[in-house]
Structures are given as structure tokens and as C-alpha cells.
């Protein structure tokens, strides 16, 4: 089964190459993308089942001994993230193909998107710090291209912020990786825990902070988040959907990985404070906005706070809660952006002052928005409630009162801003000036593929809520994997 691991990276990248080769034929590009993306989903699911049954799978690239090779390591945590991510990537891909104006879009969408998939898979699987950096770079550069796909004024301006800050992130990351190598002489994440533990405290702290800053920037954690709300809204809708759902979560994934695997014994009070600030600053920003995409973008930041809170609380239960939160959050956030995309395609704007009455124009679309919106605000019985409750319960168990208070207050404010979108865009009378506004089910029928995909993703979020028990138990096993450096080392170095 471990032979499948390199395929996860290789297939999409090969697809990207083929896609570049057939750049003149969009249909062929589409077929390639769907096939590659689909096979990544298939492989991920197969791995998920296999890893859950047989434990961590390791592939040493090039067949070298695991001590010196670059390893791809698929434990339950990694495969879980892989599965959910690849599902989202496939969904958004199909959604993007359903966009009517796709023919105007750049032909580089498909290659860049496939490269993004490859990078994401690589980042999840990397068992070597520098390799992690490389795949981070791959997915970042693909994201740069996707963000500036149309090359419009907006995209260039916000793209500049995005690219420049992410380049800084890369520098910080590679500095951290290099200095970890300087101090330990290895990059193998299975060997690193014991070597890092031998280092003096000051050095450990510095190395840890370097990685935290790098991944924190990617995850948009306070005070490194400002780039996100400025840059995501400018991207084409499907792109911002996949960015919103996925990219920051890869940062969180890396934070969890490094915190639990490399620096398990750090004092995380600071991180807890940061988590609180992240939640607050994100949701406050969201409340202040009056544009759907920007509100949703700020919520990414805010929601990251919950995950960081879980990480900061530490311990298997908290990590379980965090992982569950991530699993829930990725499809929820994605679907919100997908709905927004349909609204924007239908009305031509995402400004709340210009859109209204969408609920009257399409009830099903309203439902597609309402479910993930309430989920995001943590209302039962949706998945967000479960995630929030899991995190909050653990916070209370650990007697971290203030962070729980903050978390709950923030979820109320989340609700406020979701209601802002709902009352602004979905309630009220449809704009009478908009003469070709489609009524009733016409909206969804007109965007059939987009709506189908959105519906599927929303259904997925509902399914996560419905089958929360088994999923939570899987998260528990994943967290056990993630928090046990010794087991990781044993799996990689038999």
C-alpha cells in the first residue's frame, strides 16, 4: 500500500505536465484534471482505510534506508486530511468547470490547479522538513498563479500582498529548517524529536518560534493574518473557495505536526493567547465588512483561532477536537464560498448593499447558504456545533475559562456577521432593477454543475454532523498518532 504514497504527489504533477502540453485543448485539460483529481481522491480513500486498519504507511523515496531517504509518511492524521482535502479539491474543480465564463479564464488554470493538488499532497505526507518546505513552495507558487489568474487590477494588487508575505513566510520557514539542521544534523522528522529534545531551551524555543511564525503566517494567525482578508476576495470564486477551505488548514496541519511531533513539551500559554486574539480579531473584522467575500475571508481567520486554541490546549483530547474541527471546517468554509460564487455569478457582485432577496429568487440556494453559515456559527445540529463543543469542552476541562469565554463570544459574533449576510443578501425584496434576474428554481438550474457541487459539499457537511461519532473516533485515533513521536519514529524507522 505504501507504493501508493508517491502516486499522490506524482499523479497530479504528471497531470499538470500533460495539461501544459495540451494547453490548446481545454476539453482534454478538463479530462486530465478530473482524472488526476479523482484518482487522488480514490487513492486517499484507499489509504485512509488501509492506514486505519494497518497503521502508518511509509514510503522511502528512491528505496534508500529510511534514515537518510526522504520519507512520505501517511499516518491517520495525514490521510484524514488528505481525504477531506482531495474531496474538496475535486469538488471545486468540477465547480470551476461549471462556471460559464470559464472559457475566458486562463488556460493555465488546470496546470496550476493540478500542481496545487500535488503540493498539498506532498505537504501532508512529507516526513522530511526540507521536503515539507519544498511542497509548501509548490503549493504556494501554484496558489500565486491561481490568485492572479485573470491578471486584473484587483488581483494584482491583492496578489502582491499575498505573494510578498508568503515569500517572507518561505524565508522564515527555510531559515527554521536550516537552523534545525544546523543544530541537529538531520531533517528526518522521525529522528528529529530525540535530537531536538537534547538542545538547550533557548535554541528549542527559537526554532519552534521560527516554524510557528512560518506556519502561523500560512494559517493566518494573529498578528500575521492581515494578508488573508485582503487577498482572498480578489481571487476567482472557485479559487478563493479552495484557498479558504484548504490552504490555511495546511498551515494548521503543519503547526499541529510540528507542535506535537517536534516540540511536544513547550509551554503553550502564548499560543493560547494568540488563539484568542486570532478569533477576536478575525470576527471583529468580519463584523466590520459589508462584502460577502470579505466577511467570509475574515471568518477564516477567526475560525483558525479555534483550531489554534485546540493545539494550544494540548493533549490527545484537544488535538482530537482540533482535528475534528478541521475536518468539519474545510467543507463548510468551501461551501460558503461556493454559494457566494453562485450569488456573485448571478448578481455580478458580492457587495451586501447591492444584493438582496436571494432567498426569494432561490430557496434551495438560501438553504445551501444557511446550513454552512449556521454550522460556521456553531449552531446545532450542524457540524460546527460539534467542533465547537469539542474544543470548548476541552477548554473547560482544562479550566481555561477566559479562552472559553472568548470562544463563545466569538461564536456569537460569528452569528452576527452570518446574519448580516443572510439579512442583507438573502432576505428582502429582489432588486427590481435587475430585469433578467431569474426567479425560483431557475437560478440553480442555470448553474447546474455549480449548484450540484455546492449541494454535494453541503451534504458532506451534513454527513459529517450525522456520522460525527465514527468520524470523531477516527479523529481520536488520528490524534493519538499525531501526538506520539515515538510511534511515528517506530513506524518510519523499523
Amino acid at each position, binding site marked *: 500500500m505504501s507504493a501508493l504514497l508517491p502516486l499522490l504527489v506524482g499523479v497530479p504533477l504528471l497531470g499538470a505536465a500533460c495539461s501544459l502540453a495540451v494547453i490548446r485543448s481545454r476539453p482534454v485539460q478538463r479530462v486530465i484534471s478530473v482524472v488526476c483529481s479523482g484518482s487522488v481522491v480514490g487513492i486517499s480513500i484507499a489509504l485512509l482505510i488501509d492506514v486505519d486498519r494497518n497503521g502508518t504507511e511509509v514510503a522511502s523515496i528512491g528505496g534508500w534506508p529510511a534514515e537518510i531517504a526522504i520519507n512520505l509518511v501517511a499516518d491517520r492524521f495525514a490521510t484524514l486530511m488528505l481525504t477531506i482535502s482531495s474531496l474538496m479539491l475535486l469538488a471545486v474543480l468540477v465547480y470551476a468547470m461549471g462556471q460559464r465564463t470559464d472559457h475566458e479564464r486562463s488556460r493555465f488554470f488546470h496546470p496550476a490547479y493540478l500542481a496545487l493538488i500535488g503540493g498539498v499532497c506532498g505537504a501532508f505526507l512529507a516526513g522530511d522538513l526540507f521536503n515539507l518546505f519544498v511542497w509548501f513552495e509548490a503549493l504556494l507558487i501554484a496558489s500565486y498563479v491561481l490568485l492572479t489568474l485573470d491578471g486584473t487590477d484587483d488581483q494584482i494588487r491583492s*496578489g502582491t500582498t499575498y505573494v510578498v508575505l508568503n515569500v517572507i513566510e518561505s524565508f522564515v520557514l527555510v531559515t527554521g529548517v536550516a537552523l534545525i539542521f544546523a543544530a541537529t544534523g538531520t531533517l528526518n522528522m522521525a529522528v528529529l524529536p530525540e535530537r531536538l529534545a537534547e538542545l538547550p531551551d533557548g535554541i528549542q524555543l527559537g526554532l519552534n518560534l521560527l516554524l510557528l511564525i512560518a506556519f502561523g503566517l500560512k494559517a493566518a494567525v494573529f498578528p500575521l493574518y492581515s494578508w488573508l482578508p485582503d487577498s482572498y476576495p480578489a481571487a476567482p470564486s472557485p479559487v478563493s473557495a479552495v484557498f479558504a477551505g484548504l490552504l490555511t488548514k495546511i498551515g494548521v496541519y503543519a503547526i499541529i505536526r510540528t507542535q506535537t511531533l517536534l516540540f511536544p513539551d513547550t509551554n503553550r500559554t502564548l499560543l493560547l493567547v494568540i488563539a484568542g486574539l486570532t478569533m477576536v480579531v478575525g470576527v471583529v473584522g468580519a463584523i466590520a465588512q459589508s462584502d460577502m467575500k470579505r466577511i467570509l475571508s475574515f471568518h477564516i481567520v477567526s475560525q483558525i483561532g479555534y483550531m489554534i486554541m485546540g493545539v494550544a490546549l494540548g493533549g490527545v483530547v484537544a488535538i482530537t477536537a482540533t482535528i475534528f474541527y478541521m475536518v468539519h471546517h474545510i467543507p463548510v468554509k468551501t461551501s460558503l464560498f461556493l454559494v457566494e460564487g453562485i450569488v456573485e455569478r448571478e448578481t455580478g457582485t458580492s457587495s451586501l448593499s447591492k444584493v438582496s432577496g436571494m432567498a426569494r429568487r432561490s430557496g434551495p440556494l438560501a438553504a445551501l447558504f444557511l446550513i454552512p453559515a449556521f454550522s460556521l456559527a456553531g449552531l446545532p445540529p450542524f457540524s460546527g456545533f460539534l467542533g465547537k463543543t469539542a474544543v470548548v469542552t476541552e477548554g473547560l476541562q482544562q479550566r481555561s475559562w477566559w479562552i472559553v469565554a472568548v470562544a463563545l463570544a466569538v461564536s456569537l459574533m460569528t452569528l452576527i456577521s452570518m446574519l448580516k449576510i443572510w439579512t442583507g443578501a438573502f432576505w428582502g425584496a429582489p432588486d427590481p432593477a435587475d430585469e433578467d434576474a431569474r426567479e425560483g428554481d431557475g437560478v440553480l438550474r442555470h448553474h447546474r454543475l455549480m449548484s450540484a457541487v455546492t449541494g454535494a459539499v453541503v451534504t458532506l457537511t451534513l454527513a459529517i454532523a450525522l456520522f460525527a461519532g465514527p468520524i470523531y473516533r477516527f479523529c481520536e485515533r488520528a490524534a493519538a498518532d499525531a501526538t506520539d513521536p515515538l510511534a511515528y519514529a517506530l513506524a518510519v524507522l523499523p
Partner: protein
Amino acid sequence: MSVEQALLIGLMAGAGTYLALHRTLTRIILGLGLLGNAVNLLILTSGDGPGEPPIIGREGEFTDPIPQALVLTAIVIGFGVISFLLAMAYRAWTIDGNDEVEDDISDRQLADRAAETGDADTAPGREGGS
């Protein structure tokens, strides 16, 4: 890592930082270039001290080959990124004739609105309720 190497790293990083804190995209890119050089040197010197190039058959104490391989990768990646940024600068020029990085429009609008007192976006429907 010798002291002068560390100093050079710090110097280039500092200079890069200074340049990156400008509004002109060209300057920012130059700054990022310098920062990239600093980081690359840092990677290279993160191994042991200098020595013979690690080529089998040569005499003497080899330097650590791993940092070299890492830097090679990092240099090329850095080049790709810088090229992309330069393409963005070019595109920015074709849009508005310069490469100054403007503030985000929505953020500025928000600031303008916050500056006005009693703006329109207050709680929906004060007149509602009892």
C-alpha cells in the same frame, strides 16, 4: 559558521528587510532577493565549516554535502518566485503605469466610513420592535 558569515547573513537580511518595507514593488523585490541570498547563505553555513568539495576521489576533509543540495533547491525555487513577482510588477505597470503597491481598496473604504460619524450601516431597522 564563522562570525563574518553570520554578520553577512545579518547584513543582507537587514538590508533586505529595509528594502522590503517600501512601497515600490521593484524595491520590495530587490529586498526579497537580498533576503533570499541571506537565507541561502544561512542554509549553506548550517553545515560544518568549509572544506573540500564533496566529490569522491578528491583529497581532504569534505564539507557537508546536504546543505549544498538544499541551497541548490532553494536558489532555484527563489528564482522562480522572484521571476513571478517581476512578472507581477510588469503587469502592474501595464495597468497603472507604475509599480507602487497601493493600499487595499476595501480597507481604505472602511477607514473612510469609520471616519465619518453616524454612517448608514447601523443596526438594521431602529424603528423595528415595540
